[in-house]
């Protein structure tokens, strides 16, 4: 009798197991076909020669790491990341703190979110007029008696891209920060103010420490959005932009056009390995808070 009941309950559990899998099955089948299996093929190819399909060991990886264009793309991508992400996060934090305190914050927040909806082609059209050597920006600068330059064909192209990234993602990060800010209980501030703390002290001693966990997540999300900066760069500058904004995606595009699948495979494996480390850290940070 007991055994019977136990059998029944395990079979019910199994049934439940099966049901959960059934719900994700259509999705997972697609993921398998369109992402996992081809990725496994890429890993395999990263060890094979491009033409003869002979096993070449780590030759492809050596080829990629010694490649000048790869080094340039990595250097630019790292430089871009380390400059624009801290800048974006800080600016967004300041905006979020100010907007949080105000009744009209919503309207301004909408304005900041708007660029997210602006398609890259529209941005590209605008940028061409704005940063052309005889463009709008130089017109403004000439009014201030400053000599302009040809912004996109110059090392300043890098800063244009940084600006574009911040402009596009500011609203996104403000929303994330405001979510973090709204999680801090007003009572803590009340108590601190009663004790005579100034606004600035409240910010340093209450707001900042409470935003630590948000900071981690915002950093990762901003990092992953930074890869999309390529869209504007490509549409404004094409396949061969100024060398200061030659990013990983440019490199992959050019290799793809030349059918250098061996190099693409090795570089894709290398880059995904680096990203994987970041992602696992991200997941850890979330996991600690019962995220999944």
């Amino acid at each position, binding site marked *: 009798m007991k055994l019977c009941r136990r059998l029944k309950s395990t079979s019910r559990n199994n049934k439940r197991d099966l049901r959960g899998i059934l719900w994700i099955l259509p999705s997972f089948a697609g993921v398998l076909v369109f992402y996992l299996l081809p990725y496994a093929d890429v890993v395999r190819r990263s060890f094979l020669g491009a033409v003869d399909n002979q096993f070449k060991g780590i030759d492809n990886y050596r080829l990629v790491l010694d490649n000048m264009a790869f080094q340039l793309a990595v250097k630019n991508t790292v430089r871009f990341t380390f400059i624009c992400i801290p800048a974006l996060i800080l600016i967004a934090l300041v905006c979020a703190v100010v907007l949080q305190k105000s009744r009209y914050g919503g309207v301004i927040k909408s304005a900041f979110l708007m660029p997210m909806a602006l*398609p890259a082609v529209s941005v590209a059209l605008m940028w061409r007029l704005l940063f052309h050597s005889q*463009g709008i920006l130089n017109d403004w600068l000439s009014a201030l008696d400053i000599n302009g330059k040809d912004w996109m064909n110059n090392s300043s192209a890098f800063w244009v891209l940084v600006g574009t990234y911040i402009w596009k993602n500011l609203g996104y990060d403000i929303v994330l920060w405001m979510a973090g800010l709204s999680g801090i209980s007003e009572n803590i501030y009340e108590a601190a103010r009663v004790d005579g703390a100034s606004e600035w002290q409240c910010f340093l001693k209450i707001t900042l420490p409470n935003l630590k966990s948000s900071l981690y997540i915002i950093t990762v999300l901003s990092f992953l959005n930074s890869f999309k900066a390529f869209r504007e760069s490509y549409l404004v500058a094409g396949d061969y932009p100024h060398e200061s904004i030659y990013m990983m995606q440019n490199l992959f595009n050019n290799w793809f056009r030349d059918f250098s699948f061996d190099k693409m495979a090795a570089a894709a494996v290398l880059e995904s390995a680096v990203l994987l480390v970041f992602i696992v850290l991200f997941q850890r940070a979330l996991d600690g808070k019962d995220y999944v």
Partner: protein
Amino acid sequence: MRRILFAGKLKIGQKLLWGLLAALALAVLFPVIFLIAGSIMGDDELSTYLGAVISGKEGYVNMPLLPRYPTLSHFVEIFIDSPAFFVMFWNSIKITFGVLIGQLVVGTMAAWGFAKYKFPGKKGFFLLYIILMLLPFQVLMLSDYLVLDQLKLTDNLWGIIFPGIFSTFPVFIVHRFFTEIPDSLIESAKLDGAREWQLFWYIALPIGSSGIIASLVLGFLEYWSLIEQPLTFLKDKSLFPLSIFLPDITNVNKSGMAFAASVVTFLPALLVFLGGQDYLEQGIMAGAVKE
């Protein structure tokens, strides 16, 4: 006394910050306003203002934000006189809605499975989904090409749509909203004899609807301005979506059209943005807020 003085200082500081923020918001909006202004400006005006860039005149581009003689002629031009534009518009619609409808079916089902069922290896599967969601296109570019080549889907709109349908991002977003549905509700529905699909249809979908809309809004903005995939996998120009159509502004007679085309590309995204901003914010936050 000191306290009052301090409060006064604070107010001035806050006003200053406010002014700065408002100015920044305007600067952020400037490109949007500029594009709209350009799209309703006549050819004559445009060639005067933009002469420096378009025809190599001396001086700089100097365009006022209000046209002297507003006209809709450029919009008429692109919609009536350029069938190619219409084809691109239609391609964009096919890609965007093809992906979103597919995600709606496949993604919400998977999200429900992850949110409310237990099965072996669930954590591992979900981690896999998160990893895939976070990898940029460049990493998956070659694998994408290999599979599309195998399935003979290169140079085909389905080759863009299928990988989009199985994107794991909407699963992640909707999952966040489904997990918030109380278990007690599901248990009581079960006691009343509800079947599994009824739980999904009558509980998950209505209660999680704001999450589903949030993922659709984010998805629309993403696929409406998709660049990398169509650029890589489509060779046939008649398949190009609007998002990779870069009109030539350097042609004197076409600059007005270029502005109008940009605005038309932007308009659907703007409408989705204005209609779905609350959902958009919820979707963004779903990536960050802890439970």
